[in-house]
């Protein structure tokens, strides 16, 4: 029922697994970024895969699951801290069916599956977001916050404001799949 969301075909690069990455997004260190498939990176997004853990070998910095959306102008940056005198970045892991609204800044350590993050949010360093949680628009989540499953957070600082319905998982999954289906290319003229 919802109208399709059109984008110009030349703007997005589509991978074999259905990921769509805007050419206008800034992807730093792409070799350290994993996209699960059918994930969309909108234009203007900045993903800092270059901020990797020091040390030899291959390191995954940011991994996103399937059916995710990184909104326009979002900044995804791995969290960092100084532990025992050593400054280091830590990987960021994001589950399936996670939508991040436009202009949000995410420095979380872990985001579960079926999580909705609104527009203009700030998700502080090392935040842990469990499955099916929802962050309302314009919420500031301070560093080290834990957001339990099926809870709604909003405000500044973000606080628990309520529980989400039991069928949140199905609703979000339908929403993200439907969104990906509606996100269709049009040929340029």
């Amino acid at each position, binding site marked *: 029922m919802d*109208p399709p*969301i059109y984008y*110009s075909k030349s703007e997005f690069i589509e991978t074999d697994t259905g990921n769509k990455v805007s050419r206008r997004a800034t992807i730093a260190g792409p070799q350290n970024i994993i996209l699960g498939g059918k994930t969309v990176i909108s234009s203007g997004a900045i993903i800092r895969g270059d901020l990797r853990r020091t040390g030899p070998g291959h390191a995954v910095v940011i991994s996103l699951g399937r059916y995710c959306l990184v909104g326009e102008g979002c900044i995804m940056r791995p969290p960092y801290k100084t532990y025992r005198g050593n400054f280091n970045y830590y990987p960021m892991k994001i589950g399936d069916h996670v939508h991040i609204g436009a202009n949000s800044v995410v420095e979380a350590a872990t985001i579960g599956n079926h999580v909705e993050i609104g527009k203009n949010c700030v998700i502080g360093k090392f935040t842990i977001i469990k499955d*099916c949680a929802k962050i309302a628009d314009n919420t500031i989540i301070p560093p*080290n916050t*834990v957001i339990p*499953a099926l*809870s709604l957070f909003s405000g500044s600082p973000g*606080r628990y404001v309520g529980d989400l319905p039991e069928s*949140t998982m199905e609703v979000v999954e339908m929403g993200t799949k439907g969104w990906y289906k509606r996100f269709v290319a049009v040929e340029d003229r």
Partner: protein
Amino acid sequence: MPLTLQYHCSCLSSKPTPPPPHLPSSAYNFHPLHTLFFCEECDAVRCNHCVMVEVSGYYCPNCLFEVPSASVRAEKNRCARNCFLCPNCRNTLSVVPSDPPDTGDIRLSAIPVSAVGEPPFFLYCNHCRWDSAEVGITFEKPTGLAAQLQKFEDSAPESLEFERLKEHFEPFLRASSSSSPAHHPTASSHHVHTNPITAAASSAISRDVSGVAKYNPLARSRVGKDKSANKDEMPEYRSRVEIGSTSGLGGGGDVDVEFVKHLEDVSEVANLEQRWVNSWASSPRASDLKPLRIPLLSKKTKRCPTCRHILIKPEQKAQSVRYKIKLVAANYLPAIAVAVPQPSSTEVAKRSTVRSSGGGAEADKGPEGMLAGKTYPFHLSFTNPLYDPIQVRLSVQRAQYQASGEAPAPEKARRPPFAVSLPISAFPIAAFAEAWEYEDDEDMFGVEDDEMGDADVRSRDREGRSKTKTVGVLEKRANVTIVGGEVVIGKEAKGDVKFNMLVSYTYRSDDPGIDETEGTPSRTASKGPVMKTFSFYTVVDLGPIIPKEEPRPDPDL
């Protein structure tokens, strides 16, 4: 301006029909489909307002520790580990070590002595930069902080007072609980299904708000005298400290006056929100605020209010989002979505979206409103969750709308603000099959045109005027059927285009295998295919009417 369609839950009211939608109170009777439950035994929709809720487990929202219910009460419903809320902004506090001692040697001091850091430790707020050293709370070790704070908490005058009160009332409570069933059989009869937890919750809701115009020593002593004169053999309670005579702050005495007199900054006073959870005689000074242990959250089991069958039973693990039992209405009732097509705007939207090149394009905005005196088509899409095809019949709850909508209005001749046309005859929706769920969007819809012959359901318009294709079945694919309706808005209409719609669907309940999933195992005793009908009300909100702007010629409104 989103268009909404919500489902009615009668919440055990005697009247099955919902209130007219223009009454503000009607909003409480309607809910989004995904928040509703379905009781198979009663064959009825249940909502969060009417289900019985039981706590099935407690956990701390910060450390996610699952607290055994035995220790919840002893720990006063709050986390007894290392989790604290900032008294200033209610963010979670983190434990931080002190700065390492400055040895003067930079290279040496860069290597910390221990993994956890230097004592003393204190609590620090990452959001507002409050820290517990400000109020003189520091810790020797970074673990078991709640236990370290326990002695302060237990020795606080209000908690001592509370303990004393409990002691005082305990014999009375014990006596009354044993005698009360005999005393008030009628009072408890309508609480047949009330379990202790529900009772505790309801008494918590009805309790007095602390510190707000409730404490009256005069009245209290009078009441006490009356009582003792009557039947209650209650000894007079003597408080530990007479509150008016407390020397501390917050008692309303001279100390408070002094404090307020010398205020220099508003932030020196703790605001109401910060003091809300404290006892009523807390200090008004912001610098006296103490870190708060985090209140526990709970997972809930939900039961049908009439038959007590479980509708929702979560898994034991606190952070699991799966359920052992989950009877949600979305698995039984067709999901209905409403949209108002914008004929010419699709192309515009397409072009503008391409230009703004969008991930989060906002093309799915509804119209701003409906102009008075015009006719608008709208679409309703029905999605069948059952593994059987269903027949759906729609009707607008018209009579009641007019009855209660027009009767109170003084001018009787006025027409209803709008008229809704819907397909009159029943239309089918194909069964849900798992195959539809498969990833690929196109090429699954081979059956699409099969039953289009049925589409002669077309629209005898109520006014009999325009015999357009706007009313009737518009599209069928997979388990989705889209029907069109039409709304004619009166010339002088205002308010919202909002109407109640009765949806009845008929499904076949023949073989028990399917019935199991379909949800009426109790009724399958009858042999052969049986057509069953279930009806429910919905409210459709098509947005506000934009009134005509030119002044009307006739002055009498």
